[in-house]
């Protein structure tokens, strides 16, 4: 884990040279992220739309350069990748290794899922940042599915006092639907919005309500994205 920042910087270089991805307006996105982090000491959960297998990595790269994570490894968000995606290719194995990961089996035993959610909660309360995809999996429609809000995200938000949620909408300009990777040479647009979901409901209903506030925000960001590109 200590070597992760070094590997991350290496992978950033590889992905820029081999996949030739580019984050649009990267400086502004990164400056905005740093401002959001500096605004408050409250726990920060990053929630993003999910279209490709490497979104966790791309989001980390969008929020900070390889050099930045090299200097600030403690700020690199924790991830909860799907266990079954492990080891499919050498590239995904490298990515999983370099990211701070808590593997999760979606649809697995509820106790195991609960254990992962509790770990994420503990990390947030200890000042770490975590990244979760509230739709649980890659969107098969290629659009944010508001109704697919994973209750676990709401459970984390509801159990961490003062939790802020940084909604990240990331999409490659050639990304028509879901895929393993964005197309080579694609330019990735990123938008950020920080919200503080609240709910007066109780129990599981509260968690669903909080999770839906996040997916609604992501859906709004998606609408803005497509409106801006018309």
């Amino acid at each position, binding site marked *: 884990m200590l070597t992760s920042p070094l590997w991350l910087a290496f992978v950033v270089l590889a992905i820029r040279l081999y996949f030739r991805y580019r984050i649009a307006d990267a400086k502004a996105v990164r400056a905005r992220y740093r401002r959001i982090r500096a605004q408050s000491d409250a726990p920060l959960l990053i929630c993003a739309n999910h279209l490709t297998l490497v979104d966790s990595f791309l989001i980390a790269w969008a929020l900070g350069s390889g050099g930045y994570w090299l200097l600030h490894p403690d700020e690199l968000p924790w991830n909860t990748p799907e266990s079954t995606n492990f080891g499919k290719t050498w590239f995904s194995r490298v990515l999983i290794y370099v990211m701070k990961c808590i593997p999760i089996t*979606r649809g697995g035993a*509820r*106790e195991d*899922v609960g254990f992962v959610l509790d770990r994420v909660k503990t990390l947030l309360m200890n000042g770490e940042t975590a990244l979760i995809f509230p739709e649980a999996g890659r969107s098969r429609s290629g659009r944010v599915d508001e109704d697919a809000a994973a*209750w676990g995200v709401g*459970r984390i938000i509801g159990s961490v006092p003062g939790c802020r949620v940084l909604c990240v909408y990331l999409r490659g300009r050639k990304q028509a639907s879901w895929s393993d990777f964005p197309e080579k040479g694609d330019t990735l647009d990123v938008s950020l919005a920080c919200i503080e979901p609240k709910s007066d409901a109780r*129990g*599981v209903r509260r968690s669903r309500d909080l999770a839906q506030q996040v997916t609604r925000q992501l859906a709004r960001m998606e609408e803005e994205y497509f409106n801006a590109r018309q």
Partner: protein
Amino acid sequence: MEQSEVMERVVKILTPWVKDEAALSQVSMETNILEDLKVNSARLVDVVIAFEDDFDIEIADEDVDQVNTVGDAVNLICGKL
């Protein structure tokens, strides 16, 4: 309320979310909700909220961690009635 009656109502509530209808016809207390009935894990919360509404009970997030089978759901509900 008898456990059998709870079981019957639980199966009725689950039915709209079940993707494997053949498994539903052989449902038992041991039937796994996600693996056997193929209920989408992201929709489990809707099922649990339907349990809350139907049985007029409140289920905590942590309670859901114990629910893997139909029997787990029946026992959880019976314990709250």
